[in-house]
């Protein structure tokens, strides 16, 4: 079977301090604080009506800056954060049939939909979660972490031994399998976290910023594991602020900011939606209105925007425009001080929609 995800109008307002992972840019632009005068309660709007549909077997990306609401969305879908309102369901196709779960037991996959908050236990059986920060059980060795995780999901002893060995091998952890995980490097912890999430063969895998802090080699390994899982029909929801990762892995991407979905589509569709594709971020000594007009008239330019930092020009080419831009500036007696050219990317898309860079 395949299991998809559907959310409708998810809202989350934190009245106490949000969990660390969901805090993002430490209550940055994504949050608004309202202190009531009588009761000193916190009101942090983390999600403001998020509706998504993730098809079974899809790799879906949530892309956005810190504090956009990505971790809160994952938290709600994984029973860890209670939504203030809205609906979050897992949608299983092949309703009513009996299938073998990771434990080799028959599990009725039931009538189509599982409301994650109405039926948390069944939802938890279907999902695997890799959190943003490694949350390994420090009291146990790497092997025990996998074995106990398997036991929590009711996998018979012999099966979980075999599966743990396979995963330790696959994730290159065999040599440290019987060590406590406290002394592991960040990359090893992350690998073990992913191995643990796969231990019970979940139908939906949630990866919350999985490659943060990973070296390039481990990141590539992670990507190939994600692809492999997906090839087995697993649905994968991945959050990231890494454009390359979203571009590389995801079938579809939702760009979120301030708790809202601001764009949704395949990476190619999204990139094609940016006027021109290229962005030239320019800084002039002065930007008279005439200069802006002249820039708009240049061949290939689709949009010119004045920003706090300077002027952004959206165009269908990059370097080829520089000569014309310098010419336009000279004609208005302004000097061009700085140029930054970006090729078509999701990053530019984000910039286009929000006026901010993802990394800001």
């Amino acid at each position, binding site marked *: 079977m395949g299991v998809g995800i559907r959310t409708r109008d998810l809202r989350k307002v*934190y009245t*106490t301090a*949000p*969990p*660390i*992972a*969901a805090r993002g840019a430490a209550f940055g632009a994504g949050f608004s604080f309202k202190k009531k005068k009588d009761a000193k309660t916190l009101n942090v709007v983390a999600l403001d009506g998020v509706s998504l549909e993730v098809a079974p077997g899809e790799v879906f990306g949530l892309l956005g800056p810190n504090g956009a609401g990505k971790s809160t969305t994952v*938290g709600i879908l*994984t*029973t*860890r*954060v*209670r939504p203030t309102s809205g609906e979050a369901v897992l949608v299983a196709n092949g309703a*009513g049939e*009996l299938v073998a779960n990771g*434990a080799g*037991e*028959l*599990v*009725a996959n*039931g*009538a189509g939909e599982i409301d994650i908050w109405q039926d*948390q*236990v*069944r939802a*938890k*059986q279907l*999902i695997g*979660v890799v*959190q943003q*920060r*490694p*949350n*390994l*059980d*420090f*009291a*146990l060795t790497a092997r*025990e*972490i996998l074995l*106990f*995780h398997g*036991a*929590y*999901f*009711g996998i018979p002893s012999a099966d979980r031994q075999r599966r743990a060995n396979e995963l330790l091998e696959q994730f290159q952890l065999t040599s440290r399998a019987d060590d406590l995980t406290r002394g592991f490097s960040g990359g090893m912890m992350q690998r073990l976290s992913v191995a*643990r999430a796969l231990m019970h063969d979940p139908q939906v895998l949630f990866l919350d910023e999985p490659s943060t802090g990973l070296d390039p080699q481990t990141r590539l390994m992670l990507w190939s594991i994600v692809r492999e899982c997906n090839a087995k029909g697993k649905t994968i929801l991945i959050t990231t602020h890494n454009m390359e990762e979203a571009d590389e892995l995801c079938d579809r991407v939702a760009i979120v900011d301030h708790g809202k979905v601001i764009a949704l589509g395949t990476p190619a569709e999204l990139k094609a939606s940016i006027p021109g594709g290229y962005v030239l971020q320019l800084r002039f000594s002065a930007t008279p209105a005439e200069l802006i007009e002249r820039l708009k008239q240049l061949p290939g330019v689709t949009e010119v925007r004045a920003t706090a930092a300077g002027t952004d020009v959206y165009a269908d080419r990059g370097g080829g425009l520089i000569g014309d831009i310098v010419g336009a500036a000279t004609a208005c007696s302004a000097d061009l001080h700085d140029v930054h050219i970006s090729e078509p990317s999701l990053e530019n898309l984000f910039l286009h929609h929000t006026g901010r860079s993802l990394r800001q």
Partner: protein
Amino acid sequence: MNITAASQLTTQLNQHVAWKTFSALFARDVRVARRNIVTTILQTMLQPLLFVFVFGQVMTRSGMMNASYKGMLLPGIMAISMTMTGVMAVAMPLIAEFQFTKEIEDRLLAPIRIEWIAVEKMLAGILQALVSGAIVAIPARLLLGSDLHLSTEHLGLFFTIAFLVALFSAAGGLTLGCSVGQTQIGLVFSLVLAPMVMFGCAYYPWKALESFPILQKVVLLNPLVYASEGLRGTLAPVYPHMPPMVVIVVLGAIDTVLVVAALARFRSKAVS
């Protein structure tokens, strides 16, 4: 297969898995407790045992205290050890696991209602408290020597009270563990646990507070008083003690309140 049959089967399978999950969670805590047994013993039992040595041996042998004090001391020492072990065994790991590292997360994601995870934590705490009571009794008994006037006539009541004490410590530990942060642990120990131990009627019977009428009333708020008095009343009834049935009723009420509070605290701590 029709829908009703399918959903019945799902329910059965879920119950089956839930039981397996519960025992796996318990097995995990037992494994960790066994691994840490030496530290746990040192952490919770060394102090009461030193107390036994100083007051049960040094003070009585030198004649500064009456030898009958020794028999009075043993049940109190057991009450302290059980309470401290239960509280520490549940609260300390929980405080760490709910902090920054969120270690508890893999258990919260186990396919079981999260309340059962709290129940499992308490069960593991009860077991550790009972083991601790049994372990501390042996060296304490050896240190104190003979002439303790211990009684085995009320073993049924004794074990009932011992269980209620263990439950109180585990449920109290869970409530505490879900209520304080890592930075406040030291404060909790010096402000709550230290006075609780000193005014817990472990080192003296409640009757001894008669000359401090206000204090005698105030300490009735301290659950350790009932633990000490109850164990004393059933194990060494020659010494002054509260009636065991009163102890059972009060401890039962305290346990009920603490279990409800622990479940509520755990739920609100586990889900944001």
